[in-house]
């Protein structure tokens, strides 16, 4: 950073450039890069370099696809080349001489569409030659791969990260073996014979690298736009939330099943595009093109560029592809010449290309040891706090309103909001919740207290569906919610915070907030990619809503909107977590020791907020250890001990209850 600033100081041009807003700068850069890429083949370069570039685009596509799975969603896929293979064989089989089905009238419509031909064979029944349109198969290949992505992904959903990697590796091994053995479909090790080259309005792409170069460039541009748009969308945020903390993501209403499968499907679809493109360019495919080393090479590209960084992955994939196709070859020439000069036979014969996989291995190890975020990690626009902001006195939110909240005079309707009956949970014989009955009335602040290990957090986990209950029923506004999954319970209006803050650490404050808004937003992958006005509008409203909620915390969080939360102070992280929970627009907010680790002033500020939330119509259940806080803020107090509710009532009653004092402070010893 220092060097950049000093450059900026000395170079007025750079200073002017840096004054342009980042979004605009990115657009300008993209246009310039695209123009350079379009001009590249006409700069008089060797046609073999154009060909190499077209091949490199295949790998960029693959790396971008894997980046969706590994980088965005955090799912390590070690068999990604399987999708490359499936895409390749899909087009390969549909546009080559490999499959020769017998002619029947059913093929007639396809003949009319120009997708197949009837070929007479001497002395035998006629056969059908398939030559499906490349453009059509591009779509079909992507779709088939997406389906396989879901098929391969579905079994792994419940598995830990490392088991998931192994299962994907297993699929990645099975696919090339099948390709080798199912000779009828693939022609085995011989390779597909004569895959047709693409045609566009009668123009045959043929064997010149030029049309493939532009086609590849187009596909890469498409994948880049899709990746970038997904990243900054509801879908991308959901992926990153799962990557950072699956449990907390569920508590914000993100269905991990849905989004993991979506990541597998979209990653696989991009791999399929790459496969169709590559086989059309190469006009053949053999099983060896899709084995483990290929999966690893794609992984190396993603790791080198930076998992989750679109820019980094593109650069790394280009560099490594050229390393393979051009750079090592040319270097070999120099090294061999040097070897002849100095009379070293070893150097004169050295083939550097053979060391490619060694280089990959070295890259993987070095990156993991020294730079796990990659060479070009995702850029984060962090605006440093201004001097004024740093010096500003903390202010509380002045206007405590939320446009969506539905304030009701507290206690006006004593209808129960949450009803719990006979709730029981055992951990290996120890009851963490022992047939608890509990009613939470709408509009009240109810505190749950009890010594450590008395089952308070377990109660929250059971209500929010993060832990399965052994017995009992939980109803929200009369509707049974026990048995629903965590994200379904959030959607019904129950939000929570965690005792040991569970934020999405590498996301910014605003992104954390927007994940909280997840269940309110509609945009799916298509909406995220095409960004119709409806989606822009809901994103704009979501940001507004986030600002509104953050305003409750005065100037604590708003100046830090785009800061990653790992850098926030402890108290600010607590606040962000509470704000994120409020974003889900809960009817019932469960706060698990929100004041832990806060100093007295901060605690006081927080409790004022809790009271303010209640006046907005949000019912609050609070787990808290600081008893005087509890006594001050709550309408009612429930005391748990060993999973049993031992007291319930107004704070004064509970405070003087003999059983409570004993549970909390321990029994006075028998006269010793």
């Amino acid at each position, binding site marked *: 950073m220092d060097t950049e600033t000093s450059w900026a100081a000395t170079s007025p041009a750079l200073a002017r450039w840096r004054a342009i807003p980042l979004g605009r700068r990115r657009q300008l850069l993209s246009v310039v890069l695209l123009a350079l890429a379009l001009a590249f083949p006409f700069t008089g370069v060797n046609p073999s370099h154009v060909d190499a570039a077209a091949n490199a685009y295949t790998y960029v596509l693959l790396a971008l696809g894997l980046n969706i799975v590994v980088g965005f969603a955090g799912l390590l896929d070690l068999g990604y080349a399987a999708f490359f293979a499936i895409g390749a064989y899909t087009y390969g089989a549909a546009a080559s001489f490999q499959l020769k089905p017998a002619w029947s009238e059913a093929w007639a419509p396809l003949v009319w569409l120009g997708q197949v031909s009837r070929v007479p064979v001497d002395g035998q029944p006629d056969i059908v030659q398939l030559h499906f349109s490349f453009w059509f198969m591009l779509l079909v290949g992507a779709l088939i791969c997406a389906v396989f992505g879901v098929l391969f992904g579905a079994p792994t959903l419940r598995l830990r990260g490392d088991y998931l990697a192994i299962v994907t590796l297993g699929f990645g091994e099975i696919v090339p073996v099948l390709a080798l053995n199912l000779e009828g479909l693939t022609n085995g090790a011989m390779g597909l014979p004569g895959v047709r080259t693409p045609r566009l309005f009668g123009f045959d792409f043929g064997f010149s690298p030029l049309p493939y170069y532009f086609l590849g460039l187009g596909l890469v541009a498409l994948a880049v736009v899709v990746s970038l748009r997904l990243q900054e969308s509801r879908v991308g945020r959901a992926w990153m939330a799962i990557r950072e903390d699956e449990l907390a993501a569920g508590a914000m209403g993100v269905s991990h099943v849905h989004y993991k499968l979506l990541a597998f499907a979209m990653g696989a679809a991009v791999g399929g595009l790459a496969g169709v493109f590559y086989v059309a360019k190469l006009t053949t495919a053999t099983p060896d093109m899709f084995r483990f080393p290929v999966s690893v090479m794609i992984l190396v590209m993603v790791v080198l560029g930076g998992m989750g960084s679109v820019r980094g992955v593109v650069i790394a994939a280009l560099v490594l592809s050229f390393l393979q196709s051009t750079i090592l070859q040319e270097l070999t020439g120099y090294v061999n010449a040097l070897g002849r000069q100095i009379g070293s036979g070893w150097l004169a014969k050295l083939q550097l290309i053979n060391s490619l996989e060694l280089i990959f291995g070295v890259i993987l190890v070095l990156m993991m040891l020294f730079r796990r975020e990659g060479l070009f990690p995702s850029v984060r626009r962090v605006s440093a706090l201004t001097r004024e902001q740093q010096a500003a006195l903390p202010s509380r939110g002045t206007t405590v309103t939320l446009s969506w909240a539905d304030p009701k005079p507290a206690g006006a309707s004593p209808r129960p909001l949450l009803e719990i009956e006979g709730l029981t949970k055992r951990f290996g*014989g*120890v009851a963490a919740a022992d047939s608890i009955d509990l009613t939470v009335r709408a509009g009240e602040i109810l505190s749950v207290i009890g*010594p*450590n*290990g008395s089952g308070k957090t377990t109660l929250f986990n059971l209500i929010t569906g993060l832990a399965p209950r052994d017995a009992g029923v939980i109803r929200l506004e009369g509707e049974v919610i026990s048995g629903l999954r965590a994200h379904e319970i959030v959607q019904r209006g129950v939000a929570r915070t965690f005792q040991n803050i569970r934020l999405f650490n590498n996301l910014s404050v605003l992104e954390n907030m927007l994940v909280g808004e997840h269940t309110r937003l509609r945009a799916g992958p298509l909406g995220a990619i095409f960004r119709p006005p409806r989606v822009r509008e809901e994103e704009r409203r979501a940001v507004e809503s986030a600002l509104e909620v953050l305003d409750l915390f005065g100037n604590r969080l708003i100046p830090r909107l785009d800061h990653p939360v790992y850098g926030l*102070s*402890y108290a600010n992280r607590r606040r962000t977590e509470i704000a994120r929970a409020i974003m889900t627009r809960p009817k019932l907010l469960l706060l698990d*020791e929100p*004041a*832990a*680790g806060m*100093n*007295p002033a901060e*605690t*006081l500020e927080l*409790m004022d907020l809790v009271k303010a939330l209640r006046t907005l119509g949000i019912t609050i259940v609070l787990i808290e*250890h*600081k*008893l*005087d*806080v509890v006594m*001050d803020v709550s309408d009612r107090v429930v005391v748990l001990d*060993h999973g049993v509710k031992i007291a319930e009532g107004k704070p004064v009653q509970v405070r003087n209850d003999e059983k409570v004092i004993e549970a*909390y*402070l*321990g*029994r*006075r*010893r*028998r006269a*010793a």
Partner: protein
Amino acid sequence: MSSQTDGRPPHADGRPPGAAEPILQFTDVHTYYGPLHVLKGVSYEIREGEIVSLLGGNASGKSTTMKTVLGLVRPAQGTVTFRGETIHTLRTSEIVRRGIAPVPEARRVFPRMSVIENLEMGRYTRRGEPGWEAELDRVFGLFPVLKERRSQLAGTMSGGEQQMLAIGRALMANPTLLCMDEPSMGLSPGYVEQVFDIIKAINQQGTTVFVVEQNVNMALSIANRGYVLQMGEVVLAGTAKELLENPLIQKAYLGSA
């Protein structure tokens, strides 16, 4: 090593606390977890033969204190000495070898090892030394249930029994100082009483005890002295009697806002 046991006062009971020399001493210890300042310059002094209780609310720095004693967390500033030797720079195994035995929070017995194997692990740093039989007899004397279940897997025992095992395991090394982190947590009242009786008994056999507790009354009823931690600072220190009588203790312990 045998001189250690010989040189130890047989009964610390009744001895005025000031008379014994400090064996564990924290001097102005600061600890951080990343940016989080957990211990903000705490000083404690545990004297030979005492039971000292460390009290405080959640996130007050109690467990961090225990981890610091055992070298699982390194202080950024300040010193920890044990019998005059600086130990905060040592590895955990070295610290344990010097005679400090932990009874960790949540017991942490080895679930897929038998009772007897767990006890062997307690004597890991002194393996091969004579005295195994004697220590085993002592532990079995304190906890007859462990003798009955010597070949049962620890993970299949109840929470209370596991706590007995965790204490027994720590005693197997015949430690000078026993560091206990919330031994009463999650135990039913009957077991809690039993555990504290045993702590008392162990102390009378000559072991110094440093115990982190949330069960204030119980902890102070057996302790000689206590410290109260709040937000990483010692806010109250004194003899157990003084602390029990201090009207602030309940408020302070439960976290005053």
